[in-house]
């Protein structure tokens, strides 16, 4: 039964072009990050009438700029793409009536949620693979090779970080009865996490710290964020449990 639900979710993401758009978004992010890191200083220097001597202050790009660009872009576009991919998955089924059709069959309601989550996380993993591979390739060409192990550990941390937003969006979609409310809930969750992440001291425990930890791994810094990893995992588990419990009790 669970395999059937997984297969349906995967085919739905593929056949409705959502997966393709999602992967294309990550591919573009992976390509433009090192390119922007390399050529932004060049572009700045080529601006006409630049004050004399300013060009000398623009530093030469390094591999560190490529990593910083990669993190920044993947974080920003990734959150947006993940929320857009996930916010409608349950609310749409309820709104259109397909959930009612499905739930008259012998399926577990929690299995429906978990199948959607698992496929969402799989697509996110694929997105980060595409993103990372493109960034690695362009960074090698434009700068120098990145530390392979550290770079993929950074991507694993990004998987957990973006997984938080994916799961919160899925929870919002389950709690809502319409796609509009689900979207408001998903973006509301994003705003709450951003606000909490900007509070000093508290920010050390928020999922955003995972990106800092990841960049430190690649750039040989000494930042770790185990508490943030624990909190991020906790948010994912909690959001999934809330979504499952709510859906188990909900009248369709």
């Amino acid at each position, binding site marked *: *039964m669970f*395999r*059937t639900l997984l*297969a*349906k979710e995967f*085919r*739905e993401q593929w*056949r*409705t072009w959502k997966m393709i758009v999602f992967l294309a978004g990550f591919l573009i992010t992976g390509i433009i990050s090192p390119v922007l890191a390399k050529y932004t200083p060049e572009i700045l220097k080529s601006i006409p009438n630049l004050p004399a001597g300013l060009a000398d202050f623009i530093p030469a790009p390094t591999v560190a700029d490529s990593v910083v660009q990669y993190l920044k872009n993947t974080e920003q576009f990734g959150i947006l793409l993940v929320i857009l991919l996930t916010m409608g998955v349950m609310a749409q089924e309820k709104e*259109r*009536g*397909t959930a*009612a*059709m499905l*739930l*008259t*069959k*012998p*399926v577990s309601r929690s299995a429906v949620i978990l199948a959607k989550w698992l496929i969402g996380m799989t697509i996110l993993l694929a997105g980060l693979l595409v993103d990372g591979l493109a960034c690695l390739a362009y960074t090698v060409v434009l700068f120098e090779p990145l530390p392979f192990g550290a770079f993929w550990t950074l991507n694993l941390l990004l998987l957990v970080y973006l997984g938080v937003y994916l799961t919160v969006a899925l929870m919002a979609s389950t709690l809502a009865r319409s796609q509009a409310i689900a979207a408001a809930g998903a973006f509301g969750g994003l705003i709450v996490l951003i606000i909490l992440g900007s509070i000093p001291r508290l920010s050390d425990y928020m999922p955003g710290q995972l990106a800092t930890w990841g960049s430190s791994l690649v750039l040989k810094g000494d930042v770790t964020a185990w508490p943030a990893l624990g909190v991020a995992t906790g948010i994912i588990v909690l959001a999934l449990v809330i979504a499952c419990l709510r859906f188990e009790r909900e*009248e*369709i």
Partner: protein
Amino acid sequence: MIRIENFVKTYGSVRALDGLSLNVESGVVYGFLGPNGAGKTTSMRILSGLARPDSGRAWILDKEIGQPGSDVRSLIGVLPEEPAFYGWMTPREYLCDFIAPLYNIHGKVAAQRADELLEIVGLKEAANRRIGGFSRGMRQRMGLAQALVHRPPVLLLDEPVSALDPAGRKEVLELIETLRGQTTILLSTHILADVERVCDVVGIIAKGCLIVQARREDLLARYVTPLFEIESDNGFGHWLEWVEKQAFVTNVTVSNHTARVLVKDVRTAQKPLLESLARETLAVRRFEMVHPSLEDVFLRVTEKEA
């Protein structure tokens, strides 16, 4: 086979079900009738596991609904009033790759069953078209096909033919007739002619509770009130005024050239009616004593409740 005991369900201040109890015996086609908002769809949703009653219990094949370890969903096939599908799927994919495996039917068996059902519901030609482009009638046929995939012993059909054209309606009703005896069918509809055609037992609900439940023939016999139908080519003129004043007449309705005269007692009414028609020199084409249709019974029962 299907037993409901004292279902109560409220939505805010609205009491959708108010102590509904009914009993559907094995193998019968049960016509579930009631005006809009009577509680038919709510009952169906509870039996399907989509909603829970505030109080009351129900059993399907002796399994109690909503109890842990007592999932009745593999025993039932459900067709909601407005069946919804994934628009990107084709009918064959939906039945063979999605619905059948949920009932543990896989591979060639699933493919054969899907093709068989698509043939039965008249969607064979559209088997590989996207469901997203289907008309409402085609979706209703698909809805019937998905309800039958696992050959369930119990079918819950909510308005199964309301979106179909006359030919489609005839086909689906014939299909339902072929299931009689082997499948217990609870069929809600507002098209009373369909109930008269296929249902063995009729239950009428209003305001969330069952008013009448009986075999169709028994119900018609119980509510029989002799009715005269008179058709006249030159209208009824003063005769209508006369007939409305007669003590043996309870109601008179006229549509086009036909008058329907409901009387208290057929023997008392027959002779004076015939004499009066002759006296008025009406061009009577037809004078017939008819029994009320299920529609008449339905209207009388529900009006009495209102």
